[in-house]
């Protein structure tokens, strides 16, 4: 991004769309270029170079979230093959801290967006519900590193959790009623009143622009 007129217009457009400041956009652009190896788009393989990310048990889900069409607002399901810088910023904007100057309605909106991002991480087949299978899948991934935990333990944790969800969301169930899965509204219900979305943000340091020689 140089000093040409059209480039700074782009920056302003991105500022408007994603809410980042122009400094942050520039920093993120540099990071994007670093990850993509100076290409205009990033693919899944580009995330393999980050050593810290390798340690994360839900690494594949996080990377997948970057390419998820629902998060990119490009469609109801499916995965993109590659993302450009604007898409990268769109995903990153889910992790922006909640601005204290926003009014109540906007705060609720932000909160919903963040929780929806998380919901999409669980709901891998995009049917709008977190089924028992999908939940089990997540728990297994979280515990994947430990060889001593058998699949059975992971399953029982997942099953226990789903039963709790059923009781919270549906209340008392008839003996032959089948709980289909957690919908997004149920998901919101679970987290109602709990200020969990403040844990879902990344705080940017105040970056001074690189000053020229003084």
């Amino acid at each position, binding site marked *: 991004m*140089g*000093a040409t007129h059209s480039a700074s217009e782009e920056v302003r457009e991105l500022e408007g769309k994603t809410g980042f400041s122009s400094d*942050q956009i520039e920093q*993120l652009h*540099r*990071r994007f270029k*670093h*990850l993509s190896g100076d290409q205009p788009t990033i693919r899944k393989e580009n*995330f*393999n*170079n*980050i*050593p*810290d*990310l*390798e*340690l*994360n*048990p*839900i*690494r594949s889900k*996080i990377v997948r979230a970057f390419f998820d069409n629902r998060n990119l607002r490009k469609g109801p399901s499916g995965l993109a093959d590659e993302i450009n810088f604007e898409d990268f910023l769109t995903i*990153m904007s889910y*992790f922006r801290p909640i601005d204290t100057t926003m009014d109540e309605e906007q705060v609720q909106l932000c909160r919903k967006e963040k929780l929806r991002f*998380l919901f999409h*991480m*669980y709901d891998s087949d995009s049917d709008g519900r977190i089924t028992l299978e999908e939940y089990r899948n997540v728990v297994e991934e*979280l*515990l*994947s*590193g*430990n060889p001593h935990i058998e699949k059975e*333990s992971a399953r029982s*944790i*997942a099953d*226990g*959790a*789903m039963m*709790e*969800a059923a009781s*919270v969301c549906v209340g008392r169930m008839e003996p032959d009623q089948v709980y289909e899965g957690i919908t997004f509204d149920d998901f919101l219900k*679970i*987290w109602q009143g*709990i*200020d*969990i979305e403040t*844990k*879902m*943000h*990344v*705080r*940017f*340091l105040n970056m*001074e*622009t*690189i*000053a*020229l*020689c*003084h």
Partner: protein
Amino acid sequence: MQPLSTACEVQGAWSDSAGPQWATLRMERGAKEKNHQLYKPYTNGIIAKDPTSLEEEIKEIRRSGSSKALDNTLEFELSDIFYFCRKGVETIMDDEVTKRFSAEELESWNLLSRTNYNFQYISLRLTVLWGLGVLIRYCFLLPLRIALAFTGISLLVVGTTVVGYLPNGRFKEFLSKHVHLMCYRICVRALTAIITYHDRKNRPRNGGICVANHTSPIDVIILASDGYYAMVGQVHGGLMGVIQRAMVKACPHVWFERSEVKDRHLVAKRLTEHVQDKSKLPILIFPEGTCINNTSVMMFKKGSFEIGATVYPVAIKYDPQFGDAFWNSSKYGMVTYLLRMMTSWAIVCSVWYLPPMTREAEEDAVQFANRVKSAIARQGGLVDLLWDGGLKREKVKDTFKEEQQKLYSKMIVGNHEDRSRS
């Protein structure tokens, strides 16, 4: 296997480098008066990260999440995802390791366009200044430096070969030492390196091992111009090989054949033999094994710490205001790198000789290595990292990954059991 670094180029300069030296002195004096830190620790990236541990953070999330009954399994599992999700995105935005392998970003421009990412046309005056700078650096300084470098290298080769013909004895040692020192000092001048040595009383002695953080091949010249070391390294071909063969005639350096480097025991054996002979010079080793960009110190390979000799740590910190000394070997070859060095304004650095350390009884080699590394990082104002410099070229070892995951899963299952018991 411990990759070893080599003693490399030799350059020289008798030119009067009083100008930049005076400037540095003034800067340092000014900094002391205002009580500023001249080399301030590198600021950490673009995001503020909490230095809390995995366990603490998860406990916090769970605490904030469970305002209701304690055995709410669903919330616990769901909230753990928050932690890992955030951590993952943080590392994607900015991670500690990959940025160590490219040149440091400066906060203010040092009139070298190569270090300014945002180089753009700002004003006529600045551009003229910069243009003048280019003229001076390339047309005036560069030829001077190259001439001196040439003089220095030839002197080294010729001098050490001549000394090699003398019979072994004190006179030979004396001459050899002075030939080496003189040639390295010529090289230092060729780079216009302005070096401040601190605590010279702690300089390495015979029978010891000198370890330092590694930023570029120039480190060797900088250290060797102030002390007389035995170099350790691989045998190279070409000009390097010629220099190496000449040097070893005058005094016993330790050069390994490429095949020998792979054999860790052989390497350790030869180094031990060298160290045990008190008449032989201290060995110079860079345990990181690769060049790091001088903002951090990465994992020290334990090979040199297993030998059992006294370790003399040395911290080297370059001032980025005058030139970036980091050698990004994936981007630049050796010759390009040297040209860049010789066309910078100057290379300003500080060398601290730290007090000697020995391995304590309950320590193993790895802990000892980490202790030395922390001391060097603290003195130089560098970030102390546990990561392996080898990550420049390879991926994270699976064993390391598994350890972290084990820790996490232990916590979950532990909590789950507690809950089901209560």
